[in-house]
């Protein structure tokens, strides 16, 4: 049974290889090959899942050791896989949502002549993501980590002829690289501290605890913070969040799969996976929670101001992941809920993005929500699925978002003390804002009167429902976003499923669960109400009003990007330019200067050779004299 794990990864990898090397002759069938292989890997996942369920909770950890990868002295890195409840959850999410989005893309990318390549990249991403979550040591995880980064680079920049896309892709990769510094330093620290970076001995397996606890708290904090840096890069958390917005340049299925459902949540996976380390470093955990809280507000605020539907959703993604990170930072209280929210978010956010994609598909790639309006009549299925996703994300009672987010807010309060109150408050505020901006999106897109006009070529967009291949995934995901939360929470199924890996503890909450729920309901209603007052009652202006200072700031991502641009990009350019100058003048100049001076000296010496036989004779004669003197001296002494 263990051997299936490798196949799990092998299937999409094979797909990627075939599609990318295969060349034009595969153009006709390429997309189907890709879809097939991703669903094959999903099937493997289901088989493994059933196998895990058949075991009892304690030994639900399968490991597969393929071969020794880098054996140098004490440094032993193997290519080995580890499948436990945590990774299983991810496998199902990745392959499931992944396959759906493959299917969706078949329709969405129909008119793109490079569709084969697109599917190749998608498969590559699946393989890398699976490697990430299945790796049995941090170095192998690093490979997957960078693999997904590469895939996202290729997919964001898929429409390379658009300079904006190419730039966005580069930006995403670079920001992620900054995060990778964190990961690699963390691995080095682990190696120097524990002499290993494999999950088994480090984090403990089959019950007995790992050696992670043995190290000094200082070391653990350092490692934890480095891991957090990595997580920030991958999961677009403040301060490394700037790439996610631009990443929306990529095709919408990519945004749905990579930048909403799976890849961006890798950071959360990393933190939860390293629970043993974080538990030993409370300071680091505090930092994690702070980062989470800040990001969830940041993303929410940004999401409120964007008129580009995808960018608004991207802001929302940021903020939702902020929730997860916050939960993960709370420690054993929050791990489970972080993952749970991650899964549910995977469903409804993917659904929302697919919906947005379908809208764009119908509006010939118009993304400005101010040019939508009243689309519910034209694309009913999209409307319904999108609406369900909307209800789920704002946490409408009974839908999946409600359960997961509510739990996180509770946990935040349960942390206790002032920071408990502060974090909880942030979470609540975030919920309110979420309700606001999602309602805004909903209203601007599907309600009100139609606001679209003929585009540059002058032909009116006539919105229409998307083809079957696109609607089916949306429907499935809508189901997920409706029922997943309830399914997980009833009888704490998810909690019991995941507890053996992450551990769980009920913090002592200063406020009862009911109070929290009520509070959440209240802020939700408030948020929706404000949004309705602004966008439901009066018509939406087609050109965005100037708006308040906050609005303008939020449109510009709260000036985060401008900061990066001014400080890093400009500064870097100046630095490099001056260095190039220095290298040419100083470092090179020294050498050339020496050469020149030598040349001058020899030129002066050359004058002695005046060519007159007599002056040569003089030197000979003088030489003879000197010789005699020398001999005489020799004899004298």
């Amino acid at each position, binding site marked *: 049974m263990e051997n299936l794990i490798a196949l799990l990864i092998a299937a999409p990898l094979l797909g990627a290889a075939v599609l990318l090397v295969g060349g034009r002759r595969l153009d006709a069938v390429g997309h189907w090959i890709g879809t097939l292989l991703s669903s094959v890997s999903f099937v493997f996942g289901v088989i493994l899942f059933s196998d895990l369920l058949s075991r009892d909770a304690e030994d639900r950890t399968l490991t597969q050791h393929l071969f020794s990868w880098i054996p140098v002295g004490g440094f032993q890195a193997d290519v080995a896989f580890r499948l436990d409840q945590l990774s299983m959850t991810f496998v199902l999410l990745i392959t499931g949502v992944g396959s759906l989005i493959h299917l969706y893309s078949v329709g969405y990318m129909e008119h793109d002549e490079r569709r084969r390549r697109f599917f190749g990249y998608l498969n590559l991403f699946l393989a890398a993501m699976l490697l990430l979550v299945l790796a049995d040591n941090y170095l192998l995880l690093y490979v997957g980590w960078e693999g997904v980064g590469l895939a996202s680079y290729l997919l964001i920049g898929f429409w390379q002829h658009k300079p904006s896309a190419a730039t966005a892709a580069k930006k995403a990769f670079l920001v992620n690289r900054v995060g990778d510094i964190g990961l690699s330093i963390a691995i080095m620290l682990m190696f120097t501290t524990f002499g290993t970076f494999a999950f088994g001995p480090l984090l403990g397996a089959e019950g007995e605890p790992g050696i992670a606890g043995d190290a000094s708290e200082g070391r653990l904090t350092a490692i934890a913070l480095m891991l957090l840096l990595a997580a920030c890069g991958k999961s677009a958390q403040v301060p490394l969040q700037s790439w996610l917005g631009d990443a929306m340049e990529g095709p919408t299925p990519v945004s749905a799969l990579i930048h909403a459902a799976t890849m961006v949540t890798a950071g959360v996976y990393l933190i939860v996976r390293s629970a043993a380390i974080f538990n030993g470093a409370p300071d680091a955990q505090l930092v994690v929670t702070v980062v989470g809280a800040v990001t969830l507000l940041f993303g929410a605020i940004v999401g409120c101001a964007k008129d580009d539907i995808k960018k608004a959703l991207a802001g929302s993604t940021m903020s939702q992941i902020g929730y997860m990170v916050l939960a993960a930072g709370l420690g054993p209280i929050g791990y489970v809920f972080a993952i749970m929210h991650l899964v549910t978010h995977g469903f409804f956010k993917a659904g929302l993005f697919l919906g947005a994609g379908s809208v764009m598909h119908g509006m010939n790639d118009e993304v400005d929500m101010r040019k939508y309006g009243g689309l519910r009549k034209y694309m009913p299925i999209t409307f319904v699925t999108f609406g369900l996703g909307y209800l789920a994300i704002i946490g409408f009672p009974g839908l999946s978002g409600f359960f997961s987010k509510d739990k996180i807010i509770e946990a935040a309060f349960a942390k206790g003390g002032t920071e408990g109150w502060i974090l909880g408050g942030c979470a609540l505020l975030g919920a309110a804002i979420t309700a606001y901006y999602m309602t805004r999106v909903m209203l601007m897109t599907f309600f009100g009167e139609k606001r679209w006009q003929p585009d540059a070529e002058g032909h009116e967009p006539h919105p229409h429902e998307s083809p079957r291949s696109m609607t089916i995934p949306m429907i499935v995901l809508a189901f997920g976003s409706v029922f997943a939360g309830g399914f997980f929470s009833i009888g704490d199924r998810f909690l019991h499923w995941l507890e053996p890996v992450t551990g769980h503890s009920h913090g002592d909450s200063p406020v009862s669960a009911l109070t929290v729920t009520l509070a959440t309901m209240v802020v939700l209603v408030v948020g929706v109400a404000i949004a309705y007052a602004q966008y439901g009652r009066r018509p939406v202006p087609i050109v965005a009003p100037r708006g308040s200072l906050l609005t303008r700031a939020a449109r510009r991502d709260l000036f985060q990007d401008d900061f990066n641009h001014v400080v890093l990009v400009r500064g870097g350019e100046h630095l490099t330019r001056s260095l190039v100058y220095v290298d040419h003048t100083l470092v090179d100049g020294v050498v050339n200067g020496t050469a020149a001076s030598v040349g001058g000296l020899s030129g002066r010496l050359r004058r002695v050779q005046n060519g007159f036989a007599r002056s040569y004779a003089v030197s000979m004669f003088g030489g003879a004299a000197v010789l*005699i003197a020398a001999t*005489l001296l020799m004899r004298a002494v």
Partner: protein
Amino acid sequence: MSAQLAAYSTSTGEAVQFWVLGTVAVIGALCTVFMKRAVHSALCLAGTMIVLAVFYLANGAYFLGIVQIVVYTGAIMMLFLFVVMLVGVTAADSLKETIKGQRWLALVSGLGFGILLIAGIGNASLTEFSGLAEANANGNVEGLAALIFTKYVFAFEITGALLITATVGAMVLTHRERTERAKTQRELAELRVREGKHVPPLPAPGVYARHNAVDIQGLLPDGTPSELTVSKTLRERGQIRDVSTEAMNDLKALEQRAEERLERAAIEPPHLKRTEEASK
């Protein structure tokens, strides 16, 4: 003085002879170096050599003494004079130094060298010496011959080869290959006629000039001097004297001699300058 004497001891007579002739030799050498005209140098050198010949004899090297006179002063110096004549006997070169610092360097190193050399000799001075008595017992020439034809026979043969080579070399260097057949009188005459200039023989030098000298151009009827009147060799050497400036030159020469007597710096007459340019 007798051979026996010269063989093993030095008499006071030899001492006197040494001091007298030695002075002469040194003076001769100095003159060789400092005389303006090559001819004078050559003559002084010849003198020095003769003195040296005498010293050889005094040192019991009778054969060498004779050879010195015959070969050096006889043959080689004559050869020198011959070449000097070829180059131009009147050619006198100025001793003004052209290369910067050359003279000082030369003098300094010369002095240094000499002093060191003499110091070295004095350093290695030995008081008593074994004369050539038994070496020259049965004649100096026989002794030399015995050595040359036994001990140094190879060196001797090689010098023979060397001499041959030198002769051939000299011939090769000086011989100029004639490219075309020498023209006969007749052809020359025809050529002259064909060219149509100087059909008559060239005018004689010094004709119509106040000075009747070979190296002075004759004046044409209109009073302009004509190069043609001077012989080709002189022309090539550039040793043509100019009629017009002749009087002045004499005057200058006079003044110069006077000045030299008064040991003043010599101002050089133009014609000398010219000739010296030629000699360079």
